[in-house]
């Protein structure tokens, strides 16, 4: 055991059992998984991404690149790539190492390490070009995915709950170290709402490694906790800082049986960033071996968790804080083998204290190599040569079981930079610091450089390291100094390009420990300064965020709102099969026992053609257009003429965009001189209202007209078929049937309910659409079903509706049209009001391109063999083997009424090609010969619907 007998913030009265790779261990409340593993002497915790090198615990915080484990909390709760350094230990925790086979100690894929000479920078780009066209995705990618990778994605659905909260605060403080707590106390004193968040389970930051500060820390946190205007959020990471002080936080709640995480979206009057600084690792050969640790992390393990991560400790320092760590470990009982100071001279006071403590200090030294397989056993100390590289010919072996790296400090300016704050290079502190801010933000503490002292500049830290073997810069992505030097040698100059080519800093740790080192290596290779090379962009999220936090409650039925029509429940009871149309769920067909879709649709279609069908058309978009200038407004918008449309009459309206292409269609009825009932397609309702509102508000503000969406106000029941009137008439009151021709509308009562009755047909049969208040629709539907029983009334769904309208050659916007179809293309020129000087899109129709004779025009298509159904979307070609598409199939159905398949399509110069044969391509067989015919297959004169 390496647990100290006393000290630290753990609760020794509360032991917790956990397992790692199937072996049982014990830790204490207050431990992280990392501190508990170290307390049990476990240093080897993972294998690296590319070379499968043994890796240990580098840090004590979120910057951890190596100690990534899988946490298994049961089915659907298996989480990969969790940093062991941020997981609070709980009773029964199950953790596993990743990326190894068959075991962590014996990993066969470690042979990758032997091949590292060819797995260097740009390896993917250079290697997997052959053989053959599909070599990459058929051969190499599956292989690499097996060999390299991080963890296993969970397979079962996540059973936990996640929540989302929006809130406001006068002050949001990010980071609860000494600077953040001071800022929160100050802000709380001024009386506003204050939020203080910190990514760790325990607040205090660097104070947690300073036992003398603990009483004051406890008092300060108690003061804050007692203030009702202060919200303390531990285990909460501010990961994204957007415009206007909009900050996203993710909080791990892990309430028993309750909420797992909460996503906070905070709009703050002022943001205080107290995000601290991260210690820099040092690049030297073998700097990734388990037991090589950031110096301050080791100090935290000793002081905060009462763990001694090594008994015989060596330290490589480039900054004074390395001495503090070594002294702390010595105080905790470790032997300090040697302190190697990379600087030519170490400060006198530290040298004096080291001497007093009996610690040997070797100034001007580096490390030529380390020893040990699964944990460090020693190192080769060597004086640094003129270029900064250790002189291996003068190396001295030193035994150790823990090696501290103190490379100096990098302020965490991620969030400040995300908020588009400018950074400046501070040559004295050798760091990028916050400069001009664009938001109401204040940076305090180490992230602003406060309290930091200079150490060895990072360029000197990296000097000569490009010649070292396996000196890792990015440990998570296995990027070495040599890889970066190679990228520069191959001509990459921009740091953004070097980053992408080598993948330095692109792992899930986002380069927290590697970006500055990578930058320094590039600077050294190019002979430029760090600020001349520049910095890569900081992007959200600061740390990995679970998908659950983003999804929140928006899962399953709540993922996307479902709109259901008034007769949805009835259709469900009837066993209807539904299809999504936009957000609507519409009944597609009503299968009876033993029927498949084709059988049901055939039966429904024939019922409409031979008797009467009943259909829920409530999803149609509806807009009430009112006002003295209503007719004039429609006249300016739609292609049709409206001013002379009689009251009680309907017209099929066509709406274009200003570019001349069809946007939407629908029947418009004139209810009164100043009132129109406009219908739109189901999917186009919002689009049409938006466009009409745009013209009403911004182009024609002088018109006295108002638009109201009434889509959900009206339930619409369509009755279609030769017996439709027989069913309907006995239920209608207040209607003069002798003055109610095709395309008429009247206000009357149907089954005792006030209705707008339209005589319209989308099937080609005698047809009516009964509009009643949505709440009354089920009752009226039942009344019609009852009245229609004797006439063989048959409910039909959207599939039959599609077949029926296609037999009649009626287009569906979005199916026959695709945003490039003009009225003439669709054969609808007859709708255009000839005398109208203008309407939306009219000017575009006279452009030469819109009048070409070879535009694709709507045609009917019938298979020559009378049986083969072409695919919707199939290309139309003139002859077998042709590579030139002359159009495509827009709709295709088996028509029971006609006894053969029919299709609609858009075909170049189509109307001039009636009688010709074209071919529809097929994904499964030879092209299908089709005869080009007129698009109206049934009753072209319209006798049936006028019946």
């Amino acid at each position: 055991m390496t647990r100290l007998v006393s000290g630290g913030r753990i609760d020794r009265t509360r032991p917790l059992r956990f397992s790692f790779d199937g072996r049982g261990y014990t830790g204490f409340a207050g431990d992280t998984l990392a501190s508990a593993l170290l307390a049990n002497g476990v240093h080897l915790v993972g294998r690296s991404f590319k070379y499968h090198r043994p890796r240990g615990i580098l840090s004590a915080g979120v910057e951890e690149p190596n100690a990534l484990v899988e946490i298994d909390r049961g089915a659907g709760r298996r989480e990969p790539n969790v940093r062991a350094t941020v997981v609070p230990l709980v009773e029964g925790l199950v953790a596993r190492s990743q990326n190894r086979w068959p075991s962590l100690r014996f990993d066969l894929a470690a042979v990758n390490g032997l091949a590292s000479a060819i797995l260097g920078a740009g390896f993917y780009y250079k290697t997997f070009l052959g053989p053959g066209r599909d070599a990459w995705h058929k051969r190499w990618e599956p292989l690499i995915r097996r060999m390299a990778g991080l963890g296993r994605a969970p397979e079962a659905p996540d059973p936990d709950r996640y929540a989302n909260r929006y809130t406001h605060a006068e002050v949001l403080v990010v980071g609860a170290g000494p600077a953040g707590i001071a800022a929160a106390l100050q802000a709380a004193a001024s009386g506003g709402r204050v939020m203080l968040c910190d990514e760790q389970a325990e607040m205090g930051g660097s104070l947690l490694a300073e036992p003398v500060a603990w009483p004051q820390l406890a008092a300060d946190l108690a003061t804050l906790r007692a203030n009702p205007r202060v919200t303390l959020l531990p285990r909460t990471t501010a990961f994204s800082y957007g415009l206007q002080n909009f900050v996203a936080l993710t909080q791990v709640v892990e309430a028993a049986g309750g909420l797992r995480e909460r996503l906070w979206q905070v709009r703050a009057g002022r943001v205080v960033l107290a995000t601290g600084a991260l210690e820099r690792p040092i690049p030297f050969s073998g700097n990734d071996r388990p037991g090589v640790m950031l110096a301050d992390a080791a100090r935290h393990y000793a002081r905060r968790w009462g763990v001694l991560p090594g008994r015989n400790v060596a330290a490589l320092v480039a900054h004074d804080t390395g001495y503090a760590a070594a002294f702390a470990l010595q105080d905790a009982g470790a032997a300090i083998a040697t302190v190697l100071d990379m600087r030519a001279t170490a400060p006198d006071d530290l040298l004096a204290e080291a001497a007093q403590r009996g610690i040997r200090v070797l100034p001007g030294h580096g490390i030529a190599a380390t020893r040990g397989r699964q944990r460090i056993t020693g190192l080769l100390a060597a004086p640094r040569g003129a270029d900064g590289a250790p002189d291996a010919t003068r190396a001295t072996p030193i035994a150790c079981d823990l090696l501290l790296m103190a490379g100096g400090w990098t302020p965490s300016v991620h969030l400040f930079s995300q908020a588009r704050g400018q950074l400046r290079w501070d040559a004295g502190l050798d760091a990028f610091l916050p400069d001009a801010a664009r938001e109401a933000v204040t940076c305090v503490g180490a992230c602003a450089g406060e309290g930091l002292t200079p150490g060895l500049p990072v360029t000197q830290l990296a000097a000569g390291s490009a010649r070292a073997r396996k000196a890792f810069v990015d440990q998570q992505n296995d990027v070495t100094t040599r890889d970066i030097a190679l990228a520069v040698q191959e001509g990459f100059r921009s740091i953004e390009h070097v980053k992408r080519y080598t993948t330095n800093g692109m792992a899930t740790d986002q380069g927290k420990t590697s970006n500055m080192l990578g930058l320094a290596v590039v600077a050294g290779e190019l002979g430029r300064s760090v600020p001349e090379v520049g910095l890569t962009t900081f992007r959200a999220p600061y740390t990995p965020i679970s998908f659950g936090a983003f999804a929140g409650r928006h899962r399953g039925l709540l993922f996307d709102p479902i709109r259901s029509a008034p007769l949805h429940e009835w259709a469900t009871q009837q066993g209807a099969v539904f299809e999504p149309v936009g957000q609507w769920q519409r009944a597609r067909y009503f299968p009876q026992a033993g029927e498949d879709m084709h059988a049901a649709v055939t039966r429904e279609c024939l019922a409409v053609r031979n008797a009467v069908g009943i259909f829920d058309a409530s999803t149609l978009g509806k807009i009430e257009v009112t006002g003295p200038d209503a007719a004039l407004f429609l006249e300016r918008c739609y292609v049709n003429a409206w001013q002379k449309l009689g009251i009680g009459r309907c017209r099929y309206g066509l709406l274009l965009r200003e570019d001349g292409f069809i946007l939407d269609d629908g029947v418009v009825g004139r209810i009164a001189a100043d009132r129109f009932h406009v219908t739109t397609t189901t999917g186009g309702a919002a689009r049409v209202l938006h466009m009409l509102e745009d013209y009403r508000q911004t182009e024609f503000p002088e018109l006295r007209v108002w638009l109201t969406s009434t889509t959900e106000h009206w339930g619409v029941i369509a009755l279609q078929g030769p017996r439709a009137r027989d069913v309907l008439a006995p239920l209608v009151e207040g209607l003069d049937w002798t003055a109610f021709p095709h395309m008429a509308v009247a206000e009357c009562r149907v089954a005792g309910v006030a209705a707008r009755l339209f005589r319209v047909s989308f099937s080609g049969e005698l047809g009516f659409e009964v509009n009643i208040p949505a709440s009354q629709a089920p009752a009226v539907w039942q009344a019609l079903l009852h009245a229609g029983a004797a006439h063989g009334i048959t409910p039909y769904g959207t599939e039959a509706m599609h077949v029926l309208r296609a037999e009649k050659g009626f287009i569906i916007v979005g199916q026959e049209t695709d945003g490039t179809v003009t009225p003439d293309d669709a054969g609808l020129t007859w709708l255009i009001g000839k005398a109208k000087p203008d309407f939306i899109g009219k000017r575009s129709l006279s452009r030469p391109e819109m009048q070409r004779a070879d535009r694709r025009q709507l045609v009917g298509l019938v298979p020559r063999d009378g049986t083969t159904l072409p695919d919707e979307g199939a290309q139309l070609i003139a002859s077998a083997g042709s590579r030139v598409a002359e159009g495509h199939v827009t709709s295709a159905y088996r028509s029971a009424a006609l006894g053969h398949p029919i299709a609609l399509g858009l075909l170049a110069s189509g109307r001039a090609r009636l009688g010709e044969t074209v071919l529809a391509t097929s994904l499964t067989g030879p092209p299908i010969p089709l005869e080009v015919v007129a698009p109206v297959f049934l009753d072209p004169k319209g006798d049936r619907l006028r019946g």
Partner: protein
Amino acid sequence: MLLIHCPWCGERAELEFRHCGEAHLARPTNPATLTDAEWAEYLAFRDNHRGWVRERWRHVHGCGRFFNALRHTLTDRFAASYKTGEAWPEPPA
């Protein structure tokens, strides 16, 4: 997420709004008299520059009104928003 000032409702979250393109492009009163080139200019050509732009927004999940705003395309700062038909304010220096 931006905070956007609706001239009718005040400051609201961006997700209540829909962006509607460049502002102050009046539809020609008599398009038939325009040449194809002139019509194309109105129909298809838009400015795309770095700096202050006048653009249209609609408070689509609020009052439903279209309005105009002055926004900087580099910083996403709004300098002003104003009702349709009002003269545009001068952008900040």
